Each structure stands twice: as C-alpha cells, then as structure tokens.
C-alpha cells in the first residue's frame, strides 16, 4: 500500500501573548499524518498537546495566541486567515473529538439537535434527511435504539454513549483527518477499550488519518502506528510505535516507559520533579532539571534534531555528533 501524506505540519510554533510578552507553548513541532494511520502524541499535562490540536484547527484566538509554521492538508496550505473558509473545513475535512464528552454537549439541546445542527452546517439537506444520516451514523457506532438516543438530552446519556455520539458527529463527513484529544481519558476502562476498538475500525473503514493525544501509554501502544513524545512544547522524540517502546532514546521517554505500571513486584519508577512552568521557559533543554544525564552544555542546546536514523528522530545532546553514546551509562 502506498502511504499518502494527508496532513503535513512543519515548524509549528505557538506562543501565548501575555502582557506584551510572548510565552512559547508549542515549539517547532513537525509531523505528518498518513492515510489510515494513527500518530500518537504523548506527554505530560501542560506540555502543549491540546494547544497543538487547537492550532491545527485554527481555533486559537488571534489576539491571545501567535501561531507560526505551515500546515498543509492534502498538499494545500490551510487557510487560517480566512475565518469562513477554515470554519467550513472544520468538522468536514478536519474533525476533532474532545476530551470530556459530558461537557461537550449543550445541556439545553437534544443529541439529535446537536447532530442535525452539524450536518446542516456542512451539507445542504432537510432536517429529516439529516436525521436519517444521524441515525445511520449512530448505528455504525453500535448505539442501540438510535432514534431514542436522538430525542434524549445529554444528561440522560452516559459518558461512553456521548463519546460515541461525538465520534459519530466527527465522522459523518468522512474527514481526511480526525484529531482525538484524549478521547477516552474520562471514561472507565471497559468503555475506553470499546471506544478505542470502534475508533480503530472506523479508521480502517474510512481510511482517516488520526492524531491521537493521550497520556496513557497503554492506549498509545494499542492504537498508534507512530508516536511523538512531547515535553515542554517540543517533540523530543518521534519514531514508529514499536521502535519507541523497544528502543526509547530520549531520557524523558525512557523515564516515561519506566514509570509505566507493570505486573511485577518491583517498585514503580517515578519521574522526579515537575515540568518547568510556562513563564520560566528559557533557552536550552526543558528537561534539563529532571534529566539524569544532564550536562552543562544542555543549557545552551538549541533543541535541533540531533539524531534521525530510520525514521527515529530525537532531540537530545546525548545523540549529537559522533558521540554515539554509551546509552546504558546513564539510564
């Protein structure tokens, strides 16, 4: 099968404008999404995952955020400056599933009203036709009694059902790209796995390119074809899924893998410390303070990619130049 690039993100930088200062939140992020493939984006809370997603959709308010870089959808630059054009692309070409299904629905509208509203935003159909499309979509997501669900208010449904509805709403236009920002974090584990299974089936069926954000390594391991690890606004390491789990290179990724609970009696290794606060971000590697193999020149490091072999790229001085380092020395 030929891989087809659907979305190509290059040098995405997002900064928050705050009292005449620019606080960079997302720094030089590049990745590309391929048809029918899942890119997993993983990282600690506050590292900029959601902001990355929102900036792809052009949803950051211009007077508070500065967004730079290029995002191409099927080879065409996304028209972020044209509010109306980008609005039409949202929900039809680039769809998104939000983190918290329960609060993502207006309590005053029924599920059906939400659904038909979105359908009629993107398709010229009557209310009835929209209703039919909605029912079909809900059936695809294994919701029983879709007609009944359509007439219900959000608070009458469970989180899992609402998340299915939201996925159905996101997918009815067969978008090229589906961004799922922690789609299962607020659900319990059994529901979580059902939903992931359905997402995987739909991805195969529609050949949608997916960006899956999560801080759950299990979810990423199950779903992702490729994984990007984010820290302090940078993608510090990116590699095919198998590669990153078997051969993590960046000290942060290694720490992450170790802090993963396993069914052994060993004590859980926890990453010490906290990520640096937004305001304190400065030059050098953001992981410096927590890194076990930090060196002086890490503070001067410009966070360029240092090693990129076989689709495995990393940003760490350990892999700079010829010092193909004794990795085990500091792990």
């Amino acid at each position, binding site marked *: 099968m030929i891989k087809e690039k659907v979305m190509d993100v290059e040098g995405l930088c997002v900064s928050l404008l705050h009292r005449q200062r620019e606080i960079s939140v997302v720094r030089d992020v590049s990745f590309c999404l391929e048809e029918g493939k899942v890119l997993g984006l993983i990282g600690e809370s506050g590292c900029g995952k959601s902001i990355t997603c929102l900036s792809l*959709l052009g*949803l950051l*308010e211009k*007077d508070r955020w500065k967004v730079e870089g290029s995002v191409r959808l099927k080879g065409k630059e996304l028209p972020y400056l044209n509010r109306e054009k980008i*609005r*039409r*692309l*949202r*929900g*039809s070409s680039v*769809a*998104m599933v*939000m983190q*918290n299904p329960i*609060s*993502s*629905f*207006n*309590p*005053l*509208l029924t599920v059906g009203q939400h659904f038909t*509203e*979105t359908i009629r*935003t*993107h398709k010229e159909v009557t209310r009835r036709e929209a209703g039919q499309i909605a029912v079909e979509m809900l059936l695809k997501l294994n919701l029983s009694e879709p007609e009944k669900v359509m007439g219900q*208010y959000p608070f009458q449904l469970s989180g899992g059902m609402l998340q299915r509805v*939201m996925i159905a*709403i*996101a997918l009815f236009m067969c978008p090229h790209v589906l961004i799922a920002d922690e789609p299962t974090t607020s659900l319990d584990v059994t529901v979580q796995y059902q939903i992931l299974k359905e997402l995987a089936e739909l991805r195969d069926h529609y050949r949608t390119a997916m960006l899956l954000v999560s801080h759950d390594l299990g979810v990423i391991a199950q779903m992702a074809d490729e994984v990007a690890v984010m820290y302090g606004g940078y993608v510090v390491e990116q590699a095919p899924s198998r590669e990153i789990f078997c051969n993590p290179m960046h000290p942060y990724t290694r720490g992450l893998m170790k802090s993963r609970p396993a069914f052994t009696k060993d004590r859980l290794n926890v990453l010490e410390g906290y990520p640096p606060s937004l305001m304190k971000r400065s030059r050098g590697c953001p992981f410096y303070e927590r890194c076990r193999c930090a060196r002086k020149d890490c503070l001067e490091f410009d966070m360029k990619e240092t090693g990129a072999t076989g689709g495995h790229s990393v940003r760490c001085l350990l892999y700079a130049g010829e010092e193909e380092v004794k990795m085990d020395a500091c792990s």
Partner: protein
Amino acid sequence: MIGLGFDKFLSRFVKHKAAVLCLFFVLAVIAGGIFAPWLAPNDPNKIELKLKLLGPGGQFPLGTDHLGRCILSRLLYGTRISLGSAFLVMSFSLTIGTAVGIFSAYRGGRIDNLLMRLCDIFLSFPSLVLVLVIIGVLGSGMVNVIIGMILVQWLWYVRIIRSLVLSIKERTFVSAAKVAGTSDMKIIFRHILPNVLPQLIVLSTLDLGSLILHFSGYSFLGFGVQPPTPEWGAMIEEGRRFIRSAPELMFYPGMLITLIVISFNLIGDALRDVLDESVT
C-alpha cells in the same frame, strides 16, 4: 427554565406563594391598564370643579381630586403610561444591551476593551444625573425621558450580559460547536443566548420595578409626563399640595407604585430561586 420543562417550572414556581400572589396582582394591574376604556367609570381628564375632593362612593369609587377628576379612572389610565413606559424602556435597553453585550464578549479584543471603557466612564455617574443631562439636552417630556432612560439603562445590560456570555463562552460545548464548524451566528443563537436567557428574565423582572419607580420619579420632578395626562408619579406631584386636607390624593398612586415595585421584586426573586434550583 428552558431545560427545565414548563410544567416542572410551574410546579416549582407555585411553591412561592407570595410571588404567585404578586403575579396575580401585577396581571390585574396590567389588565386594568389595557382595559381602562371599558373599566374606567369616568373620563380621566374631565374637570368638574364643583365635584372636587369628594370622598369615595357613588359615581367616583375612590373619590375625586382637586379638579374634580375621577381618581380611579386616572389610576387606570395612568397604568398604561407608568407600566407601558417601563416595559418600553426595558425592551429597548435589554435588546440593545444584549446585542452589544454578546457582540462585545464574543468578539473580544480591542472592540471589547473600548466598549467596556466607554461603559466604565458612563456608569461612573449616577444614572439619575445622566438622565437629567440627557433631558437637559433634549428637553423635558415623556418621550425624551424614555429615550434618556433607554440610553442610560442599556449600558448596565451590556456589562451584565457581557459577563454572562463570557462565562458561557468558555464552556466546553461552545468549543465543541466551533470544532464542528458551527457558524458564529448559530453558536450565538442556539448555544449562548438560550443559556443566558434565564438570567436575563430574572434580571429584567427585578429591574422592571425600579424602572417604574424611576419613571414616576421623573414625572414627579416635572420632567416626564406633563399635566393633565394621568400618570402615577405626576398624580403624586399634583396631590402634594393637598397633603394635609386630602392625603388620599398621594396615597393611592403612591401605594400602587409601592405594591407594583415590591411585586416585581418578589416575582424576580422567586424566578431566581426556581432557576437556581434547576441548575444545582
């Protein structure tokens, strides 16, 4: 209230007995104003000096004033002006305030900042002073008082509605609608407006009382309604000169204003309770 369902809303509202009583009172007064031509026993403006300052009874159920006009008829016709003008001021200022408030909050940025600073400046004066300045420019008269009151009142609503919208705008379902490509207009009319509506209803009910009071106040001061037009505030003013000999001339309209204002406040409070309950 919208999410609540009407029958549930009603059953909760009925529990507030005083408010229900007030509601009936207000409705009765409004009906009195609307049907004044049929209900009023006499022409409210017919002067008959021979019949001045009569006590209640007979042809004049509440007696006559210093010019021999029927007090009851004047009160009934006065309702039209006193309540009507308050409703007018309310609907205009609320509409303008809502439109501008939503726009300002939704757009944000520089326009929002500018509008809010403008509001700050105007709201730093007492509204009485502002209205008097406007009347000073436009001249006195009922229409000018109404215009003046609208011009001042909407500034308050812009503020309040802006803050209501700001809190709704940050709710996740608004982002979800944006993510799905919903247009700004649809977001405003389907998601934001219905969610601020309950608070708007409470707010406007509570404010109606004070608007009635203010309007009557301007008439009392001689800026608003000019004699011989019947209006509650103006009637109090006319009766003022006879406070010793015929205190009822001031008592009837005064009492009516007091009761109406209290009623609107109690109804507003009850509405707020009912709607708060539905939130929690």
